[in-house]
């Protein structure tokens, strides 16, 4: 890869010595196959025109990239584009002098830009309350519900996806009775069972529109519905109907390897499941509680967006704007969506993918978009924006683990999560006054 870039650079240097190319530095966190897909995008852009060159650099995991970018910003050498995970959104947004909002960049560069072209649940996460897009959505996924039909058939159950939690528990009991050891598992406990759960049932995660309306927000994840849900999971864990896998994506492997019969994990896990080829998988919407009014609403995204960092030259920002326009093209989005499993970020790209017959050949691949756009997003379901949410999520996960281990009851744990979480929010508020 590096040789290729070098060769391209040399080629350009010899071919057009009169006009120097403007370089755009892009730091990202996509390893493996995803990294190749990302480099493919940059190369495609570099070949499509001669003025600008996007140079990609892999900087490790999301927190590592963010830390590296913060350090480089402090040293006055920030990259132009930085891929930041969704929980870092509030941190980036608060850093007013460090970032250049995307809508502003596009205006300054004179690039055509219509925020309405993007999926509302995706842009909602990255826009301010006035609807101005602050960062460019890049790789977005959502939590989905997977079942392994083989396990259902083996237990003599019709392989139909449970729609509600009630149905899920009934099915889980039957599977357990048939000797299935791991019946149900979940990845990303806070993201699935607090964040997506709240959006899906149209209840707030925090005040001020889940923190989007201001830093003076407080968590509200100890509502009766939250308590009921987490307490239900605690009961399931006690009865062996729910196997806890860990705080991140450990559940992906548990499902892909055929160990667990049902799982609520990221849409992005599908690639690995297909590759492992050990399950007769089927994907559907997340289960919901059918007695909650308005449920199911829509789920929220996970993944990352691209932030434009301040400190570069004007012509470099022109290049950044051009590149963002390039990324938003339907064909480019469609390719990215098909290759990686992340959702297409524009409605046009989704339509184009559907028309191409991709979803007919690959049933279930349209589930993430359908679930994200199930209904028009409300204040509770368009996303969340809490300061220092890296710490906030850890707090929630610690408290959930206490419930799953049977050490705390759900009410006490969620009360503590709110109390501890609010302290983090207050500190962020003071630091960013």
């Amino acid at each position, binding site marked *: 890869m590096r040789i290729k870039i070098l060769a391209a650079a040399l080629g350009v240097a010899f071919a057009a010595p009169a006009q120097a190319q403007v370089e755009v530095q892009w730091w990202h966190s996509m390893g493996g196959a995803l990294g190749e897909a990302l480099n493919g995008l940059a190369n495609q852009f570099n070949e499509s025109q001669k003025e600008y060159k996007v140079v990609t650099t892999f900087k490790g995991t999301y*927190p590592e990239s*963010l*830390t590296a970018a*913060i350090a480089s*910003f*402090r040293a006055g050498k920030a990259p132009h584009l930085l891929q930041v995970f969704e929980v870092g959104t509030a*941190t980036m947004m*608060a*850093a*007013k*002098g*460090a970032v250049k909002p995307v809508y502003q960049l596009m205006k300054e560069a004179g690039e055509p830009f219509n925020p309405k072209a993007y999926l509302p649940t995706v842009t909602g996460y990255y826009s301010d309350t006035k609807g101005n897009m602050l960062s460019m959505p890049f790789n977005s996924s959502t939590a989905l519900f997977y079942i392994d039909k083989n396990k259902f058939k083996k237990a003599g159950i019709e392989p139909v996806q449970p729609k509600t939690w009630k149905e899920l528990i009934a099915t889980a009991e039957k599977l357990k009775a048939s000797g299935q050891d*791991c019946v149900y598992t979940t990845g990303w406990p806070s993201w699935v069972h607090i964040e997506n759960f709240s959006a899906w049932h149209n209840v707030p995660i925090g005040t001020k529109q889940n923190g989007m309306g201001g830093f003076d927000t407080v968590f509200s994840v100890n509502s009766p519905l939250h308590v009921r849900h987490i307490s239900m999971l605690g009961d399931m*864990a006690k009865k062996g109907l729910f196997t*806890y*896998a*860990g*705080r991140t994506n*450990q559940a992906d492997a*548990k499902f892909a*390897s055929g*160990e667990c019969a049902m799982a609520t994990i990221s849409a992005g896990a599908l690639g690995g499941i297909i590759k492992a080829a050990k399950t007769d998988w089927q994907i559907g919407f997340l289960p919901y509680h059918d007695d909650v009014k308005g449920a199911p609403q829509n789920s929220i995204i996970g993944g990352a967006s691209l932030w434009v960092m301040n400190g570069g030259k004007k012509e470099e920002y022109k290049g950044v704007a051009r590149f963002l326009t390039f990324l938003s093209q339907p064909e480019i989005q469609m390719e990215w969506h098909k290759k990686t499993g992340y959702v297409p970020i524009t409605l046009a790209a989704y339509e184009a993918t559907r028309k191409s017959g991709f979803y007919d050949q690959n049933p279930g691949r349209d589930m993430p978009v359908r679930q994200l756009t199930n209904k028009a997003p409300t204040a509770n379901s368009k996303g969340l924006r809490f300061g*220092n949410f*890296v*710490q906030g999520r*850890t707090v929630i*996960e*610690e*408290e959930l*683990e*206490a419930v*799953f*281990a049977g*050490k705390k009851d759900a009410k006490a744990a969620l009360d503590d999560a709110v109390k*501890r979480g609010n*302290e983090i929010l207050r*500190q962020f508020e*003071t*630091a*960013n*006054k």
Partner: protein
Amino acid sequence: MEKRVVFRSAWLPYALVAPQIAITLVFFFWPAVQAVWYSFQLQDAFGLKTQFVGLQNFAALFKDGNYLASFKVTALFSALVAFSGLAISLLLATMADRVLRGAMAYKTLLIWPYAVAPAIAGVLWAFLFAPSIGIITYVLKGWWGVDWNWILDGDQAMLLVVIASVWKQISYNFLFFLAGLQSIPRSLIEAAAIDGASPFRRFWTIVFPLLSPTTFFLLVVNIVYAFFDTFGVIDATTQGGPGQSTNILVYKVYHDGVKAADLGGSSAQSVILMFIVIALTVVQFRFIERKVQY
């Protein structure tokens, strides 16, 4: 007879130690001073807005029950790591010292784990003990019916990180113990043997007291290791969980500072940690050292 080199020049000795002092100042003292400075500040992640908040970061920490609980976890963890690390390596060193044939091979094999990075050691043990696929888990369940699941069981998680941390440190301890054992004059042990002292008796009355300077040195090193160098192991395995059962102080420093970009809070924690280790070392040198026979 005392051997001592005396410098005649007034400046040469200073010039010779200058590089070492410069390195210490730049890489140890400067960051430490910065940590103290940052601990009095509240800053956003990018350093755009800085407020001087005095002791507020510290006050917030001591109000936080979870931070206080983390002290207990750290104390337990360090005690377990230091004690079992020393005990196991002393046993191994005593054994290796008695081996006559192939001694080099034994010693080399025992020193190997030291070359493994803490994170790798963590991942390795995490794989062996992985709840559903680990070999040891399988054996535990199959032979003794032990339900091993450190993802949810806090005590088991603690055991796992202790094992991984100890395993990593055994080689270092082993090396020092072995050197210590080899410097004990054979004549003392032989004399005791002639007097009819059993091997066990010989160990406790002669070898162990004569080893005490080594043991003391290793105790300090191991406690500092457990306090500071083990976050790689924790990060690669439990990440402080489940709940907070393996959330030791240094891991919280790393999590809050590096992962969550909360510099003020993280610096305050490192300053506290720094004082704890200074205090521990002073206590060790003042009180325990008196009982050490050189």
